[in-house]
């Protein structure tokens, strides 16, 4: 009797789970154009699932270009860099996406180190230069992006202020509670600010190791007095400053340009001492259902068309040196970058530095709002 009951339970349970799983397996019907393309190029899938972590505008443009160029629909899930890293950590070794595009350096190198990504050396990226090549072929460095200062023009005019010119100018008490910056925990730009400060106030002043790090933290602690709060993504400061919620912010150059194009009264500046930058990568996740299509996408991202599109978004120094990023076209030259910025060191030490940053800034006594 017990056996019969068990069988009855099992059959009913399987039926229920099976029904739901079948419902879950139902994919959206691919659009007509995609189906037609699929017939022409049989190997390409009609859609791929991608974790994307740049700005919304950037992701949407790249997805559109891939669809127009390859006929592959990008089912994207947009998160900040740190969030994509956390997602990969929690899903490993079974990922819900086929690939990641616009992943920041620390997360990309973690994926490589942990064996979450598979190698693919793309012909399209051959000869792109040392800065863009991974000898193992696991990571494809798409470009670089930078973190700049933005301000609300109207608010600055009303207050009679001008945009700070240097990192030190940001420490002026007149900016108290008026600055929003991205969090180093969740945002790639937030982490760029952290290691930029260490390079500028530590390594470039002749300090080494812990001393250099402490000098950077000392600057950030002084800056923290003027910061209202740390945002989850670098896009948020651009919006908050654009909407007059706050006077100053630090953001990714692409996010700033996108808001300026939308009509926000934003002004921007690259600090006199230089600005920090970071790489952005693409990789194919282990177990990707559409591996071949992902490889084709990596190839496609290396075409001149995509490089120009990246540059037009405003922030990227692409593999093609003839293309000038749009934000800097008006000034006619690239901004000054912080010298001796060691991306490799930043990647290796991210977990430790972010933990310390969190303890020092996010977990400290809250300020009176």
């Amino acid at each position, binding site marked *: *009797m017990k056996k*019969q*009951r068990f069988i*009855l*339970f099992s059959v*009913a*349970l399987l039926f*229920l*789970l099976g029904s*739901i*799983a079948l*419902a*879950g*397996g*139902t*994919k*959206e019907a691919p659009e007509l154009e995609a189906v037609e393309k699929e017939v022409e190029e049989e190997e390409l899938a009609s*859609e791929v*699932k*991608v*974790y994307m972590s740049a700005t*919304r505008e950037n992701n*949407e443009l790249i997805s559109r270009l891939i669809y127009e160029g390859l006929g592959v629909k990008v*089912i*994207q*899930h947009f998160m*900040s860099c740190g969030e994509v*890293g*956390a*997602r990969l950590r*929690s*899903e490993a070794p*079974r*990922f*819900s*996406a086929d690939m990641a595009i616009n992943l920041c350096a620390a997360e990309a190198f973690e994926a490589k180190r942990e064996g979450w990504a598979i190698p693919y050396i793309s012909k399209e990226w051959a000869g792109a230069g040392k800065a863009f090549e991974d000898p193992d072929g696991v990571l494809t460095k798409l470009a670089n992006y930078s973190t700049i200062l933005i301000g609300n023009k109207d608010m600055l005019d009303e207050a009679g202020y001008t945009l700070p010119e240097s990192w030190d100018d940001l420490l002026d008490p007149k900016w108290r509670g008026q600055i929003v910056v991205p*969090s180093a*925990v*969740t945002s790639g730009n937030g982490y760029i600010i952290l290691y930029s400060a260490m390079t500028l106030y530590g390594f470039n002043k002749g300090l080494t190791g812990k001393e250099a790090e402490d000098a950077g933290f000392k600057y950030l602690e002084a800056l923290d007095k003027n910061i*209202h*709060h*740390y945002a*989850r*993504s670098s*896009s*948020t400061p651009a*919006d*908050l400053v*654009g*909407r*007059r*919620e706050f006077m100053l912010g630090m953001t990714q150059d692409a996010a700033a340009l996108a808001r300026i194009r*939308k*009509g926000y009264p934003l002004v921007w500046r690259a600090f006199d001492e230089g600005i920090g930058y970071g790489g952005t990568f693409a990789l194919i996740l282990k177990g990707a259902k559409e591996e071949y299509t992902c490889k084709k996408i990596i190839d496609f991202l290396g075409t001149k068309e995509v490089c120009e599109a990246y540059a037009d978004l405003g922030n990227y120094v692409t593999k093609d040196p003839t293309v000038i990023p749009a934000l800097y076209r008006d000034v006619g030259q690239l901004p000054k970058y912080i010298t001796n910025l060691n991306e490799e060191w930043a990647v290796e030490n991210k977990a430790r530095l972010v933990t310390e940053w969190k303890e020092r800034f*996010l*977990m*400290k*006594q*809250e300020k009176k*709002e």
Partner: protein
Amino acid sequence: MAEARELTRTRVVYQNIKDLFAAHTIRNTGGLLFLLLAIFLLWPIFMVLLKSINGPEGITLQYYKEFVTKDYYYRSFFNTLLLGLIVTPLCIGAGFCIAYMTTRGPVFLRRSLRLIALLPLMAPPFIFALSLIILLGHNGIITKALNLSWSIYGFTGCVISQTLWLIPLAYMMIENTLSTLNPNLEDSAANLGASEGKILRSIIIPLLTPGFLKAALIIFVMTVSAFGALAILCGRTPFLAPDVYLLITGEGDFNRASVLSMFLILPCAVIFIIQNYLIRGKRYTTIVGKPVAAEPKHLGPVILIPMLAVSFIACGFILLTFGVVGIAAFIKLMGIDNTFTLIYILDARSNVALTNSIKISLLSGLLGAMLGVLLAYVIIRGKFKGLAALEGLGLAGFTLPGTVMGIGYILAFNKPPLILTGTLAILVLNCAFRQLGVGMEAGIIKLKQLSIEIEEASLNLGANVVTTFRRIVLPIIFPACMYGFMYVFILSMIGLSAVVFLVTPGYELASVYIFDAAIWGELGIACATTIKLVIVVGICLAIIQGLSKWTGLSAAARRGV
């Protein structure tokens, strides 16, 4: 010959299965339901507990030690408790005032107040956070108009936002109890010379105590566990739910997130136990039965004016919120470039997210309603040990913080034997199992009104259990089924705290899409998607109600009641 023998054997097996099913249907169904609840409610919570004590080198209390030794977590825990303790009485008070006005207040106001008060139940929880930024942010409409210099980002903003969001829920639960009170009691007291204040203090409020306590528990749990508005408005003030969210989404730190989750469950569990104890003590006051029609009482100004004032303020803010969000959905850049635009409304990705939400909510609604009424039937008609545990388990999903359930699902179903992450199924199951308690409770109430003699008569006349359930019980229980379906459907459409951890590429949901847009400061997209979500929920509810009328099931249900 062999064929005939095979046929006979098949018939015997079929007959055996049929007999087994007929003889033990309720018990077997109960067992199956228990198994499902154990898998989809207990197992995820157990995994959270396990993760909180499981370090790289085995069992450890290191993460708990960290929690109790770091000042930050104390503040986070304290802020969370304080928020719950402030918001809960505010919501109960305001909800009671509106409920009093819609059941005993001026007749011409009742319908409008009810409609306005229920409107936020169709919108995502953080809609008030969006409107507060537009109205009271540094560049807010009210801030600028009154030249205010305060900040909405912080504890105060969170209190206002959570209170406004949860007043409708408090109202709904209190109104439900208030409308079942017999007005003759109040009339008798009035005839004996009791003042309105005295009647309120000594008759209505004591009789409503179980309803208040039940509402207080739900509101407290939802206040502390829903992180959407808190994440948008908290600034630098720490709360447990956003901390859990950031630990998972920002750092992938499941150990610490699990510890925080356990501390999130703790106050909810304590309040659940206290509430049960208090209700047990007051059981004699419980009112059952149908609403009794009576002439509306004329309320004096002492009661009417303050209650109307509270109702108007709450409903006014609700209307203002929807108005502001509605306008922002069609404005290019609110406060900067106020030209009309349709770009946010036409945003294609939000349409995809909405379609996903509808698909998942319909499936969750069906599953939740089905399981809810089956549970109710087993609990009322079953005659075996463990029925109380089954009922408690059915309600557990409802009283557990959504954040914890979201993490639990990732931990439980991202590895064999049951891999569900990255599928639509995990979203459907999470939504259904968390909310099925409502359909179950409604089903229990309905079944208590149905005499078992009718079912016994059906069985004596030769109908089996399944036929009896289909022909006798189902028409009676149908309103509960519909109620359960609608509840699960709506909460799945607007819910965020659990599903935010479970969405993957291809299964983006509207509520998560709105939350992300709000977090990134894209208010136009957030407001437009919110408006579309409210409209879609409204249309879906109208279609469901229309369908139930068209099929005649609702009429049958009414007859059954």
